[in-house]
């Protein structure tokens, strides 16, 4: 390699020998600076993902083998017991679902009476985790569906228990997901009991999220369940996120912050559900600039975007309305 001819094996023997070392150090520091300012690494990564994909695939083999091996040695009896347990659970969920179906039709009728827009239905598809970020403080991982499977930036992932994260970068055949527990992630949530809205921040820890800047008069207490509020139009409303555990006073004694335990089992399992919004494109599509409305790197919260003027009114995102307040009818629509 031409680069190596520059280097004598012993740097320090003369001042010239130090030059390549300083050159490469300066180069890598410049790259870091440029990357932290302009986020070039995601662009480069999506360009080179064809090269990185085999590496990710190979690196995930030991874990996949481990899981396959574990399933190969499960006995018939264990499987039967599992099937029985699952069947019992299915019966219970079927019962609940019947009630939900009745409630849903009732709700639809009432929304019709109030001339509120109908909620969108969600469809989910199964995706597989391919790799996770080796750095434990960052909660990012790769899934096996990408732009060729019509995955878009901002789509939401859940597991059987709650919200997991959102798609932050899409490559052909793969996507990068940022988890809600990532230290750079912010999520608009709502207390299920009182309707209090707030922003939930990740902490880089799988068992802890933080709800900051609460005042003592806010109606929230330990044990409250948090749902996505749907504000911002990125996350569909009503997805369970976590439960409030305990409160902490900040140094100035003016605000409280709450510790929240996420429902999703973020450190376990290989399969997740990717949510697709059915019958609505404007809500889930990335903003016109191509950047997500809430970029993972900026823990800022953008309010609901006004719908572009060209959009038909029937297509404006209804998730932007708080769940318990009926959205205004078409005639009451505020001007963008």
């Amino acid at each position, binding site marked *: 390699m031409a*680069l190596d001819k520059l280097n004598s094996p*012993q740097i320090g023997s003369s001042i010239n020998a130090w030059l390549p070392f300083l050159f490469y150090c300066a180069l890598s520091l410049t*790259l870091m600076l440029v990357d932290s300012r302009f986020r070039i690494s995601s662009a480069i990564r999506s360009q080179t993902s064809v090269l990185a994909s085999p590496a990710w695939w190979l690196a995930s083999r030991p874990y996949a083998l481990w899981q396959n091996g574990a399933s190969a040695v499960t006995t018939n009896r264990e499987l039967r017991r599992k099937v029985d347990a699952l069947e019992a659970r299915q019966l219970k969920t079927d019962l609940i679902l019947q009630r939900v179906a009745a409630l849903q039709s009732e709700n639809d009728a009432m929304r019709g009476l109030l001339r509120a827009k109908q909620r969108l239905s969600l469809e989910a598809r199964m995706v597989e985790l391919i790799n996770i970020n080796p*750095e434990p403080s*960052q909660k990012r991982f790769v899934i096996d569906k990408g732009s060729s499977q019509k995955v878009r930036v901002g789509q939401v992932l859940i597991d059987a228990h709650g919200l997991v994260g959102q798609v932050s970068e899409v490559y052909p055949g793969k996507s990068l997901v940022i988890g809600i527990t990532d230290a750079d992630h912010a999520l608009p949530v709502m207390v299920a009991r009182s309707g209090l809205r707030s922003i939930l921040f990740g902490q880089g820890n799988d068992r802890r999220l933080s709800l900051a800047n609460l005042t003592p008069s806010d109606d929230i207490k330990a044990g409250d369940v948090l749902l996505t509020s749907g504000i911002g139009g990125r996350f569909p409303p009503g997805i369970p996120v976590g439960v409030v555990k305990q409160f902490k006073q900040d140094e100035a004694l003016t605000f409280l912050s709450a510790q929240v335990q996420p429902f999703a089992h973020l450190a376990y399992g290989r399969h997740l559900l990717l949510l697709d919004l059915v019958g609505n494109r404007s809500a889930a599509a990335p903003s016109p600039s191509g950047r997500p409305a809430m970029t993972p790197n900026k823990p800022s919260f953008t309010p609901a975007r006004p719908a572009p003027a060209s959009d038909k009114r029937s297509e404006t995102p209804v998730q932007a309305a708080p769940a318990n307040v009926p959205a205004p009818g078409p005639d009451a629509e505020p001007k963008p």
Partner: protein
Amino acid sequence: MIRRDSPALRWLSIALAFFIMIIPMAEWLAALRPFVLALVMMFWILETPRKMGLGRVFLIGLLLDLTSFAMLGEHAFRLLLMAGVVHQLRNQFRFYPIWQQSLFMLAILYVDLVVLSGLRLIQGLPQPVIETWISPVLAFLIWPWLYMFLDNLRMQSRSK
């Protein structure tokens, strides 16, 4: 007579160490994961310094940055610093007893963690988790075995 090393063993061991760095693991295990790639790289700098120049070190680091979702240049910079020190101290280092080499690795990996922590601080990224600070001890324990294993393989491949 100087026998030439075959590059196959070098690149194979580097590739293997590279995969160890990006294999998904449970969180506590991932935090304890020693910087194996740095150890293997330093071994080859000690043995065949001309074949492991700073340009190659830089490229390996950049590849690791791209595949492990790190900030671009982060691993490259950390590996370069270590490579620079080892290139510099190579002549003395090769005559150290192996436990002193291990101690040296322990020290250099701790310095590396301090560098990492500083880089993260400047960029406003989350600090490495606390268990990460145990990982150089594991590297310290691994180094003698890694050294002997690679050295053996290298001698065998040369004697053929």
